[in-house]
């Protein structure tokens, strides 16, 4: 039992009893949003931490949200089936776009910009296919809720935010576990190796394309689940809020702010960015229009310059520096940062 473990335990307990603390629905709403986004950001960081900086996750989120809602609205298929379908679709798209990218060694800025185009294509498609998707007006999953029916498990619709909260806590914890599994796997070393010297990694037996595709598909699938859950929770999706460049950038920035090399970094990113935007909008935003966006931009700049590993990355760095000299003995490296 070490200090970080204790902190994590206490943190988890705090999360679990959170709804019982009597906060208003708004606070609960923000908490739920943080967890959904935290999950999505965690999904992004699974590939982002290895230098696969995707600006295209808006596409996967859009696919998740729209596939599930379209299946429900047009075919009456429950989201419980819709979500796996969305995962498969987004995984397929990830492979479709990822395979050539990785085969042809599209990395760095190029990869970022190709994926940026992908997220834009998905957004444009949703808009252009307005007869099916509802276009940029967005669409609401057909509601099963009435004043009498507060819970429709079949439709994955719940009037009570507390239900949502726990459902999403489970999903979020699942995301963290996936993150950890990847972190502790040999795949992580392979990806680190690839991100440095992909030729050398290949000649040492690492299936470069396969390894990259694996993390990409995991990441895309998580994002799609996030998008689907987001749509179910908000009971409304539109192309701007679930896909396109803006969302993709939002995802990247939040992860950078929180720290993508630490398990809880992406969640931290969600906490920081959501609280920051909410606070800024409610304080300066109402008096001086534009100032909040300005401050937000400036904070991002400062984060990247002074805390390139994110807030949590920075904290753990300071922490581990204080723990110096590092214990020796076991030769096996401790996974994780």
């Amino acid at each position, binding site marked *: 039992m070490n200090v970080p473990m204790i902190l994590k335990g206490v943190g988890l307990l705090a999360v679990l009893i959170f709804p019982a603390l009597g906060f208003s629905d708004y606070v609960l709403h923000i908490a739920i949003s943080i967890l959904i986004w935290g999950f999505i950001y965690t999904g992004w960081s699974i590939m982002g931490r290895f230098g696969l900086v995707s600006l295209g996750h808006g596409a996967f989120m859009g696919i998740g949200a729209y596939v599930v809602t379209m299946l429900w609205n047009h075919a009456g298929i429950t989201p419980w089936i819709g979500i796996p379908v969305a995962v498969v679709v987004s995984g397929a798209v990830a492979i479709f776009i990822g395979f050539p990218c990785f085969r042809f060694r599209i990395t760095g800025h190029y990869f970022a910009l190709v994926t940026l185009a992908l997220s834009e294509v998905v957004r444009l498609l949703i808009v252009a296919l307005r007869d099916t998707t509802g276009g940029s007006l967005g669409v609401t999953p057909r509601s099963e809720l009435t004043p009498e029916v507060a819970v429709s498990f079949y439709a994955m619709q719940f009037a009570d935010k507390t239900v949502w909260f726990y459902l999403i806590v489970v999903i979020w914890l699942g995301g963290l576990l996936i993150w950890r599994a990847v972190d502790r796997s*040999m795949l992580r*070393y392979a990806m*680190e190796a690839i991100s*440095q010297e992909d030729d050398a990694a290949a000649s040492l037996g690492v299936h*470069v394309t396969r390894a990259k595709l694996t993390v990409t598909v995991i990441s895309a699938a998580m994002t799609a689940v996030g998008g689907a859950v987001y749509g179910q929770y908000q009971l409304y999706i539109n192309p701007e809020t679930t896909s396109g460049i803006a969302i993709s950038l939002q995802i990247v920035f939040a992860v950078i702010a929180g720290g993508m090399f630490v398990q809880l970094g992406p969640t931290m990113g969600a906490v920081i960015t959501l609280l920051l935007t909410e606070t800024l909008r409610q304080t300066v935003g109402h008096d001086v229009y534009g100032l909040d966006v300005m401050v937000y931009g400036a904070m991002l700049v400062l984060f990247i310059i002074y805390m390139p590993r994110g807030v949590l990355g920075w904290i753990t760095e300071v922490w581990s520096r204080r723990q110096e000299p590092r214990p020796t003995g076991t030769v096996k490296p401790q996974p994780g940062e």
Partner: protein
Amino acid sequence: MSAMLQVRDLTKKFGGFTAVDRIEFDLNEGEILGLIGPNGSGKSTTFNLIAGALTPTAGSITLEGRDITGLAPTQVCHKGIARTYQIPRPFRKLTVLENVAVAAYYGANQLISRDEAWRLAEDALELTQLSSDPRARVDGLGAAGLKKLELARALATQPRLLLADESLGGLDEKEMDQAADMLSDIRRERGITIIWVEHIMGVLMRVVDRCVVLDHGEIIAAGLPQDVAHDPKVIEVYLGSDAEALQTQVAGRVAGSA
């Protein structure tokens, strides 16, 4: 006995330029073959072709009777061929041990446990005399250390054939001798067959069984070190005035071993 590796008619063109021109050679199991030649004569390109990093324009490569021409680097590795890079390419974000462990885990042709991978990695580090601080970052290794790391990683994949590209570059003369001894040891103890590219003739000639000399992508000479050292063509394009010293040295070796 049929040769372990057979290279036939191997050709590589870059645009209009022919870097490797219809070369052919055989390699017997347990041999150390020296691949030498002037700068730009196609040595590294040949390695890249065998290791799958480049696809041949023509020709074939056969390992232990199976055609491996045009396989991807990963597949070639799994067939038992490992290579080092002339300019070291360490994974800078990983520790020394992790660098080698990746190779051990993924380089193995079958699924091995992670513990097994760590063990193989430690083993390879020991063999290359790198085991002093396996948890160090590779940045601290220095030129000689990086060369050793290249070897350690290659060995961790449990190859039967090792392609070593200028493993001595940047070492001082004493370190060179040590490294050369290491290659002989590897061959003797593990039975690993080696092709070795090097410009430091004094050291290379001491260790190799045979030499192949490339110039402008073509083989201009092949044979025992003492024959190659006397070959006028090789002297002209490659050895220059070093030839004399080399001839006496090689002669000494032949005499010594006889």
